[in-house]
């Protein structure tokens, strides 16, 4: 675990840049992290996915997989890859400030 400063505030992240404490997250941090991921402008569709991720995490204790995102976020899997080309589940989870989605076995 290490500390990283986002939007002027220190936050706890793991080695892969995922938040350890989702409650430390703010929307300004999302904008800053999106830029680090090569996404210069967060569109309303991006925000739809980010808010969905946080809601899923609050309800289920883990972020959704790409498949659940495609089924339930209102954004299709194809569009998800256009929004987050480096992999929707991981990148959106990082930007949304939730821990890395658990792959189940």
């Amino acid at each position, binding site marked *: 675990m290490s500390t990283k400063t986002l939007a002027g505030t220190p936050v706890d992240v793991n080695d892969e840049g995922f938040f350890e404490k989702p409650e430390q997250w703010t929307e300004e941090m999302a904008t800053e992290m999106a830029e680090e991921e090569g996404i210069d402008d967060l569109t309303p569709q991006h925000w739809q996915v980010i808010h969905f991720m946080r809601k899923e995490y609050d309800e289920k204790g883990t972020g959704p*997989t790409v498949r*659940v995102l495609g089924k339930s976020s209102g954004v299709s899997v194809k569009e998800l890859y256009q929004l987050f*080309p480096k992999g929707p589940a991981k990148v959106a989870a990082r930007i949304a400030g939730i821990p890395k989605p658990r792959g189940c*076995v």
Partner: protein
Amino acid sequence: MTHRIVILGAGTGGTIMANRLRKTYAESEASITVVDRDDRHIYQPGLLFVPFGLTHPEDIVRPRKRQIHKGIDYHQSEIDRVDVEADRVHLTDGTTLDYDVLIVASGTDLLPQETEGLTGPGWMEKVFTFYTLEGAAALEAALTRFDGGRIVVNFIDLPIKCPIAPLEFVFMTDWYFHERGIRDRVDITYVTPLDGAFTKPIAAQSLGDLMAEKHIELVTEFNTGEVDGEGGRLVSYDEREVPFDLAVIVPLHGGASFVERSPALGDDLGFVPTDPHTLQSTVKPNIFAIGDATNIPTSKAGSVTHFEAEILQDNVRRFLAGEPLEGEYDGHANCFIETGFKKALLIDFNYDTEPLEGHFPAQVGMPLLKESRLNHLGKLMFQWFYWHSLLPGRDIPGIRPDMTMAGKHRPGE
């Protein structure tokens, strides 16, 4: 009063639960009704061996009804839906079943139609799955004809039944073409959406090393968006391609279709939201779930179902007696991993402990995470235990439902 217990599904979980609960209650104390849509109980671990001619479809199928003990009603029909509010199941043949306790044991359905192109041109000609009896049999014929080229093995996304089976399939393919003397003419590629050979780090390392030793190529973080049977290529959502002459695909899985037709019973994928320790659903206290039908974070595998059954038997009894549920399932799973050449690995793990090296069930026993002939024999013998010990609801001597650290060690210990 006679308790009414209804069990949906007569596969591994439904059969074990019916037989176990029949031992808990005399017939005057509880009626037990089991529903399934057909009378074909498949020994699913056997499906892996069919494509290689090591077993045959007729050797791994038995009638469902014959596995269910006396004093249990077996009702053959499709399930239409569960009315959670009314504690009632509607069957498509018009029957309704009222229950005091419902156990959802309806496993998982394959959803090949959810992947673009998968059931299109080339399906069952050069694109196969061994997750069905028909698919496994068709694949045997295709492998027999295959005399060189590129074989890719891919599971589209988790969850899948027995997540280790696609890996076993590549190991077996390596062995199969060695035996036929043409391994040098066959390229084998394992394509996975995960970032390694397996989900858990220590096992992923061991299995990844084994793949390299066997000259099997590994393509990771590949999320298949399309299977182009005609053009012979897998295409990922981020537009990478893997070419093939023969593709072996494990399709997406979802819960049984009646779960989706039953308001509030399932999650987005049709699995029943279930407490990972008590196995009581979070839908309603009188609904329980077992095996592949649940959403709990462990493997969808027969060993899991078997370990869950003992806990669930106790918790159903407690629930009907008005006692607190004390049974605690720990996520214990135990899987043989066939690696070809008459050898296998064994892994044993739970929610908190990933697969480790050592021996099972204790210091003296079968080696864990290492190839051995003993494990291969264990895997073969298991079919006998399945029909004669597991399904009837007997305990296997020396094997407990909770995982033990005896015989295991962490790296460096």
